[in-house]
């Protein structure tokens, strides 16, 4: 073996040792480190998502009291049950305040309806309306009021004001949400001999709404915690609302 051959052999052997070391030891470790880098990124993303989720959950927890009050307040506009007595009470109150006589309420779902309704029509109307939509159930009614033109106009405004949007865009609920579909104003009788405004009969077809039976008003929530969160809040000792939400609901 010449000197030159010996040098070549030594160089080749050295390179072989280095390449083998790279391939067998260093490269797999670097690959592993690279994979772990990806895993770290993924874990960081997951952590960020979890942090966001937790943050929104804590925000929701902090908002619970107001949300409960809001949802109970909305129950005046869209109750969990048909609440026909409450509706009659509200209509009577509104018509009295506007000098209008509340003559009749007929549940349209109960049939063509000749008589005035009472609590007896409640179940029928709710059942018939329940099939009307996947969300709120519809309860169609026909109301008859007697009054002057302007008194009836003011009454319609009052009915709208039961549930309305304020100028700021927020909801203001003081009574049942009603959607009037038709209005018919006809004179009660001839105006001969009378000097005052003609009394009119206002026949209104309107729809009230009811929450789905599967939900209930608060979906099982209590003023202090939602359904399924009582054990959680006490176990965590977290910042669950210490003071229960108190909502005053008048019919």
């Amino acid at each position, binding site marked *: 073996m010449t000197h030159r051959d010996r040098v070549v052999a030594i160089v080749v052997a050295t390179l072989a040792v280095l390449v083998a070391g790279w391939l067998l030891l260093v490269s797999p470790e670097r690959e592993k480190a690279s994979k772990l880098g990806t895993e770290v990124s993924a874990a960081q993303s997951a952590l960020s998502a979890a942090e966001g989720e937790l943050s929104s959950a804590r925000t929701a927890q902090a908002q619970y009291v107001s949300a409960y009050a809001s949802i109970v307040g*909305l129950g005046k506009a869209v109750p969990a049950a048909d609440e026909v007595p409450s509706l009659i009470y509200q209509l009577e109150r509104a018509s009295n305040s506007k000098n209008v006589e509340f003559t009749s309420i007929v549940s349209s*779902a109960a049939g063509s309806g000749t008589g005035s309704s009472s609590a007896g029509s409640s179940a029928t109307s709710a059942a018939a309306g329940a099939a009307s939509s*996947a969300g709120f159930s519809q309860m169609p009614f026909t109301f008859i009021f007697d009054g002057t*033109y302007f008194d009836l106009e003011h009454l*319609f405004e009052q009915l709208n004001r039961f549930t309305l949007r304020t100028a700021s*865009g927020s*909801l203001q609920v003081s009574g049942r949400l009603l959607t009037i579909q*038709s209005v018919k104003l006809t004179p009660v009788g001839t105006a001969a001999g009378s000097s005052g405004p003609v009394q009119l009969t206002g026949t209104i077809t309107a729809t009230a709404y009811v929450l789905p039976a599967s939900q209930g008003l608060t979906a099982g929530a209590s003023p202090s915690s939602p359904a399924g969160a009582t054990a*959680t809040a006490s176990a965590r000792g977290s910042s669950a609302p210490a003071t229960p939400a108190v909502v005053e609901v008048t019919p």
Partner: protein
Amino acid sequence: MRAVNLIPAEQRSGAPVGAGRSGGVAYAVLALLAGIAVLALVYGIAHHQVTSRTSQVASLQARASAEQASAAQLAPYTSFVAMRQARVTAVEQLVDSRFDWAHTLHEFARVLPRDASLSSVSGTIGSAAGTSPGASPSAGASSSATAGAGSSASVSSVTPPGSVPTFAVTGCASTQDAVAETIDRLRLINGVSSVALTNSTKPGSGVTSSTPGTGGCGANAPTFTLSVAFQPLPATSAAAAAATTRTVAAHSSSAAAAAGPSASAAAGPAAGALR
């Protein structure tokens, strides 16, 4: 005599430079050692990264799991707030989709001429026009509006966007000119798309009128029947904007003032409506 080269073999011309006595093996060993050192350094760095990243991943995953568990514990609160939002949105949509009947009646009274009066007003929305009171509202136009992510978000309004409010108005006027003026005035109401005359008949003219002829007009006063159609109900956002801006009154009062002096006083013509 034999010549002897006294120059050391490694310094003679043509000999490998720097090979030394080892013939370059020493350099090769040094290079090998240097290479191994570099490999060891790179391996060490990679190994350190693996170790640190492994612990980092474990730490991050543990934190994420803990936070997810916390969030899951608070999930009922999240669901409840989402349900509240869905209901609010649904109610808002229903509120926004309503037609303002009171304002329309107010506008009728505002624009009506002094020498005309109404005997009956019948208004309906959508295809429910002409149905008798008490009919199911499902006969009218209906559409569902999806609102939010809540389960109660899907609400079907009985007066959905696109429904057309229409009024059948009967009344009487002192003259046929007054009937014409009534038609013109009704067109001034904001949102009215068309006012069509069905009939205007003087009593005793030989033509049977469907209107009762009440309203305090003279014995020879023509009775009329008009059909007033409004523009289709707008989408809920537009309706909300319309409800808040409420430029209707200003518009119609100024238009009525432009149309004639008798309409500018709101209470005056209004008192003639259905009187």
